[in-house]
């Protein structure tokens, strides 16, 4: 069984190699190869899952060493895999959703002549992401971490002929780099503190390390998580990343890669539990981001960017939960999985809508699409109900638990975090209702595009709708299934541990509160977008709306706080380099040159001149000898 773990990664890696190196011969069947290998990976994952269920609760973890990577003296870093319940959850999510999105992409990318390459990148992403969650040490995790960053860069910029896409890809790459520096520093700190990178010794050895060091490691890990999961303050890339093809947004920038930060924090839970300050930072980042993303999501008219804001906000929930410690780990992962279903479904729905609307993304130019694309409407609607936490659907179970856990943190902190989570739930209800109303309800607001083509909204082909249906089913039932008999909790508890905390509010009270804010949010949106006709061009809006449309000024902030000083610093350095460094270098060169030009005259080639200097030198030597004797 252990050997199958390597195959899990190898299958998509083989696909990537085949598709990227295979050349044009594979153009006709590349997408089938890519999809088949993704599916193969999923099947292997399912087999491993069945095998894991067959074993006892505490010996479910599998370990597989592939080869010794860096053996140096007593230290060794291995390419080794660790498959426990946490990794298993991710493997199934990644390969499952990944396979569905591969299938969806066959239809979505049908008219793109670089489809083979697209599938190669998708397979590369799957391989890297699986490596990330299966690694048994931080160094190998780092390889996967960089691999998904690379795949993300390649896929955001897949339509690199569009300057906006190329810029967005670069932006994502650079912002991610900031986070990656955090991860690499964290790994270095671990090495100096524990002398190893492997999860098991590091996480069991935390008691022997000083709290200051653990806090530093924790903060660096948080920085890494912020970069990869688009959390404040490294959130700015996610909105622009929507320039990539929609399946990419669904797979990488909603369901899987952006949740890597949550995985990292959950996996390193032992470090954070021993460093309360780092934990506080985590929950702060989570709470701020969940509100930040939600507010941004309210203001965007671009359907994908509204969903991106929502993703940011939902991951904020997960980070918040993960920062709560054992109270929240399980719910963070649970929300991660359910979010993977419904957000992927929502994105695929958005892609389906765009597919039928000539790639129009402005929701103000949609309206009344439910009659034209019924399947998309139903699946999107189910995803919508799931995300806002409609009772009984996935989001209800997972999000409700997170809010409960936030209150259970206790003290003032608990009230603040719980309040923020509740407020976030209200805003979520508002912006998702807005997206729903603008897209599928109201009157038609379509306009011909620049080429004069009137859009003819139509349902997407079955290769696109089937994955949407599957994901919609997941969005509806996953949460309930997980909460039935607390099965998900029992499944993950051996890995992450769990505690109930001491909630000041009963579970019923929290659920009731959640329902109330949900109704308020939906009602507000209905009042604004359901009852009144929606203008085709956005009204000017309040100051907050305008700020939110600009992503709450995040780019302006980065520009003023980082880009400008950086430019001034660079200019200063260039000036110093030109004037001072070059001046010294050129001055030295000129000085040596001039001196040599003068010294060269001594070297005239006449042996007699040299003889004179020898003669004089001998005289000086005698003089020196006499002087020394005289002294």
């Amino acid at each position: 069984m252990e050997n199958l773990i390597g195959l899990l990664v190898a299958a998509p890696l083989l696909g990537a190699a085949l598709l990227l190196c295979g050349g044009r011969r594979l153009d006709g069947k590349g997408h089938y190869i890519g999809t088949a290998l993704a599916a193969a990976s999923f099947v292997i994952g399912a087999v491993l899952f069945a095998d894991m269920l067959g074993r006892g609760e505490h010996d479910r973890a599998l370990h597989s060493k592939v080869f010794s990577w860096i053996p140096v003296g007593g230290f060794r870093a291995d390419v080794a895999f660790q498959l426990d319940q946490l990794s298993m959850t991710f493997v199934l999510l990644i390969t499952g959703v990944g396979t569905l999105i591969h299938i969806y992409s066959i239809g979505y990318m049908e008219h793109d002549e670089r489809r083979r390459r697209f599938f190669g990148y998708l397979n590369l992403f799957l391989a890297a992401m699986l490596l990330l969650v299966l690694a048994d040490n931080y160094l190998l995790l780092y390889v996967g971490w960089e691999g998904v960053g690379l795949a993300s860069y390649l896929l955001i910029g897949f339509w690199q002929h569009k300057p906006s896409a190329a810029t967005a890809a670069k932006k994502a790459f650079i912002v991610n780099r900031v986070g990656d520096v955090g991860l690499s520093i964290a790994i270095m700190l671990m090495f100096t503190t524990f002398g190893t990178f492997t999860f098991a010794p590091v996480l069991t050895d935390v008691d022997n390390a000083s709290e200051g060091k653990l806090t530093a490691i924790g903060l660096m890990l948080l920085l890494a998580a912020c970069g990869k999961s688009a959390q404040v303050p490294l959130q700015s890339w996610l909105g622009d990343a929507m320039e990539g093809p929609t399946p990419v947004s669904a797979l990488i920038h909603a369901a899987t890669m952006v949740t890597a930060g949550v995985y990292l924090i959950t996996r390193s839970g032992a470090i954070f539990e021993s460093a309360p300050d780092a934990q506080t930072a985590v929950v702060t980042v989570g709470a701020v981001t969940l509100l930040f993303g939600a507010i941004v999501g309210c203001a965007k008219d671009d359907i994908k960017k509204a969903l991106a804001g929502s993703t940011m906000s939902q991951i904020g929930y997960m980070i918040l939960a993960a920062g709560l410690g054992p109270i929240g780990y399980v719910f963070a992962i649970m929300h991660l999985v359910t979010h993977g279903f419904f957000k992927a479904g929502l994105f695929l729905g958005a892609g389906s809508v765009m597919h039928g609307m000539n790639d129009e993304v402005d929701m103000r130019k949609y309206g009344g699409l439910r009659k034209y694309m019924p399947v998309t409407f139903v699946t999107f609607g189910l995803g919508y109900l799931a995300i806002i936490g409609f009772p009984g659907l996935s989001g209800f179970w997972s999000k409700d638990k997170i809010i409960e856990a936030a209150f259970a943190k206790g003290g003032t902190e608990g009230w603040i975090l719980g309040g923020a989570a509740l407020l976030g739930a209200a805003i979520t209800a508002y912006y998702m209702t807005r997206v729903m109303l603008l897209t599928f309800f109201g009157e038609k607001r379509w306009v011909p595009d620049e080429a004069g083509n009137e859009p003819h909204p139509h349902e997407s082909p079955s290769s696109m709708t089937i994955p949407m249906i599957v994901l919609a089913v997941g969005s509806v039932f996953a949460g309930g299934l997980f909460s039935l008999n607390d099965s998900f909790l029992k499944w993950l508890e051996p890995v992450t541990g769990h505690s109930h905390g001491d909630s000041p509010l009963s579970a019923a009270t929290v659920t009731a509160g959640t329902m109330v804010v949900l109704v308020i949010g939906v009602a507000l949106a209905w009042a604004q977008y359901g009852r009144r006709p929606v203008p085709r061009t956005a009204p000017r809006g309040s100051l907050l709306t305008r700020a939110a449309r600009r992503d709450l000024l995040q780019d302006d902030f980065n520009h003023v706080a980082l880009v400008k000083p950086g430019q001034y610093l660079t200019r200063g350095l260039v000036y110093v380099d030109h004037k001072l460094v070059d001046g010294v270098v050129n001055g030295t060169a000129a000085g040596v040159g001039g001196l040599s030009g003068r010294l060269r005259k001594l070297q005239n080639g006449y042996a007699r001149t040299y003889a004179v200097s020898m003669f004089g030198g001998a005289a000086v030597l005698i003089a020196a000898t006499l002087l020394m004797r005289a002294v």
Partner: protein
Amino acid sequence: MSGGLAAAASTTSTGEALQFWVLGTIAVLGALCTILMRKAVHSALSLAGTMIILAIFYLANGAYFLGIVQIVVYTGAIMMLFLFVVMLVGVTAADSLKETLKGQRWLAALCGIGFGILLCAGIGNASLKSWNGLGQANSGGNVEGLAALIFTKYVFAFEITGALLITAAVGAMVLTHRERTERARTQREQSEERVRIGRNVPPLPAPGVYARHNAVDIPGLLPDGTPSELTVNATLRGRGQIRDVSRESLAELAALEQRSKRWLGRKTDETAASGGDAETENGENTANGENGENAGSARNSRGAAK
């Protein structure tokens, strides 16, 4: 030389002192001549003189073996080698003593005077009042004493010097040897080539031969009185060793001829046979000139024919 026999002396014999002052002065003069003579041959001869005096000083200092070696090897062999090379390079070539390097002479004077003074100061500093003399060391004979040292204490140095000499001899041969890369042209080939090119088809004109200088380094004169370089051997031309036949020297020669003619005329008066001799000589001279002219005209006609 009596000082050499004394075990520890503070002064030498008066005879040696006298010899030192007389011969020392000559040695210094010889050295000065060596560096100041314009012709290398004179320099070599002056140096040979200095070396002989040094040999005498060696003998005076009890170095009998070295004194003889100095004469045999240095003066006899090395200086002769010098003279050979001087001959090879051009015995009559005189150097100009005009300095061409800027400031060289001043620097040389400064360094020389400074060096000399410092050296003398150093010797004076040693302030030697008494010495041992070689009586003890030379008691078994100077040559035997040296041999004992050379073949015991200095035997390795001696052997290595032998190797050095062999190397030097081989080196000199390698340096002066020129490998012939192609077959030497035979006389027939050379003459055929001359005919083919059409230059110097007849033998080259002979050099001018005057009564006073029956030498090959005097160019023959063309009918207009200008010297013809062609008449002088190429090697001498290459060395620039053609004797001057400028107007002044020609005038001098003419005056000489005049004088000899007058002298010969008187002789003619006394014996006709001598006059006939003189006539013959003059006739030869003219013939030479004509010959040169003939060669020149032959050249010209050939050039025109071309």
